[in-house]
């Protein structure tokens, strides 16, 4: 019997990239079950399919075959508009290169998802300031990304991912561009969100030692396949 607390589930998840006659298998029949409120780390060498998995779970990409179910909905069957709504309201994503809009300040970057949700300007501002305060960046709200440190930029990205109260947070190598101390600080923020707000976190990282300190479960990837599942705590 399946766990009723499962928030993300995949069955035979396969992703093949085609470029002319060349085909690259990024994911090979991956079966996963992620419990609600868990903190899962996905590790493995470069090109093992970690980021592809995250893109599929985040609804940024579509699978070649198999099934993905998140929050009870089959996202592998969703059309483009439904996927956009899923990304907008159900899931938050954080990236290694922060992906902030350089022409906009921290506050405006955090507000961005609310713009597409049709939230009023006043409400957008209120919520963005609130979430920036939670990640400790209220005083830096009017600074542009170029005026912020890497750690601060990643905090802005976390704030942006949290603005629509998602139940799932997907982090792709979010410490890749940060020093070890800042990396620890950022993962601590995620850990607190997981602990205090019950947000399910799936974090891709190849810094196994670091994630081992925080994650509940670690999944090891190699050549697009799950080679090991490990319960840490």
């Amino acid at each position, binding site marked *: 019997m399946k766990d009723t607390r499962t928030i993300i589930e995949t069955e035979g998840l396969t992703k093949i990239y085609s470029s002319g006659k060349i085909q690259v298998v990024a994911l090979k029949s991956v079966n996963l079950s992620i419990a609600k409120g868990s903190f899962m780390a996905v590790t493995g060498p470069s090109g093992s399919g970690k980021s592809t998995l995250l893109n599929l779970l985040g609804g940024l990409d579509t699978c070649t075959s198999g099934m993905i179910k998140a929050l009870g909905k089959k996202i592998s069957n969703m059309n483009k508009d439904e996927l956009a*709504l899923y990304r907008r309201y159900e899931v938050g994503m954080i990236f290694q*290169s922060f992906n902030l809009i350089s022409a906009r300040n921290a506050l405006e970057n955090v507000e961005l*998802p609310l713009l597409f949700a049709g939230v009023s300007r006043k409400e957008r501002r209120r919520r963005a300031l609130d979430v920036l305060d939670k990640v400790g960046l209220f005083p830096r709200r009017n600074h542009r990304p170029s005026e912020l440190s890497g750690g601060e930029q990643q905090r802005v990205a976390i704030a942006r991912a949290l603005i629509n109260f998602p139940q799932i947070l997907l982090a792709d190598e979010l410490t890749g561009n940060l020093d070890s101390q800042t990396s620890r600080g950022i993962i601590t923020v995620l850990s607190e969100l997981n602990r205090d707000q019950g947000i399910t976190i799936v974090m891709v990282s190849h810094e196994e030692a670091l994630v081992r300190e925080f994650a509940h479960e670690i999944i090891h990837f190699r050549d697009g396949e799950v080679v090991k599942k490990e319960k840490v705590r």
Partner: protein
Amino acid sequence: MRISDHIELALFNLLKRKLRTILTTLGVVVGIGALVSMISFGTGMQRNVTKSFQASELFNSITVFSEFASSQSKSEHKGREREGKERKTSNILDDKAIAAMEELKGVEAVFPEIRFPAMVRFNEREEFRLIQVIPARIAGSKLIKFRLGQPYYSDDEDSAILSDSLLKKLKVEDLTSVLGKKIEITSIAIEFKDLSAIDLPSLLEGRGLPFSKEIYKFTIKGIAERMGFEGSNPLRSEVFVPPGAAKKIKKLSFTSLWDLFRVREVGQEYSAVNVRLSSPKFVDSVQTQIEGMGFRTFALAEQFEEIKTGFIIVDMILAAVGMIAILVASLGIINTMVMSILERYSEIGVMKAVGASDKDIKKIFFFESSSIGFMGGVFGLGLGWVVSKIINQIINFFMAKQGVPFIEFFYFPWWLCLGAILFAVLVSLLSGIYPAMRAARVDPVVALRHD
């Protein structure tokens, strides 16, 4: 996304690249400016012609021809008159027919086309002219433009209206001085009692014509501006007299040689009659009713529709020239928008990652291109207006030297102003289709890796 957010976002993105936005918008400004000034010129010309026609109340008249006269005048009007129903023998263009026409709804006055040759004598000088008989109510209408004096108010007055050009010919320097003075009109008439068809051969040779000369005196009551002898104005003369007074004048009652013989067959029949209407809206109904009586008709209002079609064609040609500039401007917009996509590739990926749908992305680009169009439309309209004002002043400066009064060659009706802006937005929207589709197709996975 809210519309206000779309507008704000569009302006934010456009202002990020000020110079490029200004240059692209300038393309639209020039295009719309050219288009607007071209169309306003066409519209202005049409307006001027319509206004002058309306001011002279030419649309309020119908000319009615008897079948006999029209068979000759047909070639004159190049077939523009409408064929009446088959002529009934009883339908003769005489006083009875005039009385019947006067009864029709919308008819203000009916007066026969009577002109007779006479010698006009004033100031010891003589000029030969065709004198036209018009009733007092027509003399007082806008068909005659008075320079001085006033129209006669009764059909029986021994008064006349003279044109300023005739008075000039008669060497009158001070026009005011002639008002109230008498002119002599010397008419020639045929004594019909002495005429028979047997006399035709000698008559054609100019021998044995039973002419008589009579002199009549008329008071100059008004001085009119020169009336053209060409065109469709029912009043084409330089001397006008009322019908009551004209009846007393012995004159040739025909306007063509054919009338000379017909006058004895059918009694007094006019070759043409002018019908004046209270409003141009009655033209169609009155024309149909008169044709029903068996006469042929000619109305300028009807002919004006053809002129209008001509103006539409001219407008279209002018607009086509302006469209070339718009086409170039639209290529500029496409270029700017495509460049913008390439620059904002990862930004589009971020927007998609945080929940923007393809539709949202398309809208963002459509709002940007239409903002360029709107600004280009507004400023283009302004440019067109300024340029046309300058051209108008220059043309009028040179025309004033030749004594031509000021003419507004360009006209900006509300529909042109509004249409120019809407058209600019529409063209920009169309130009934005390809860039918007391309932006919507951006793969967020690739775009986020773009950095």
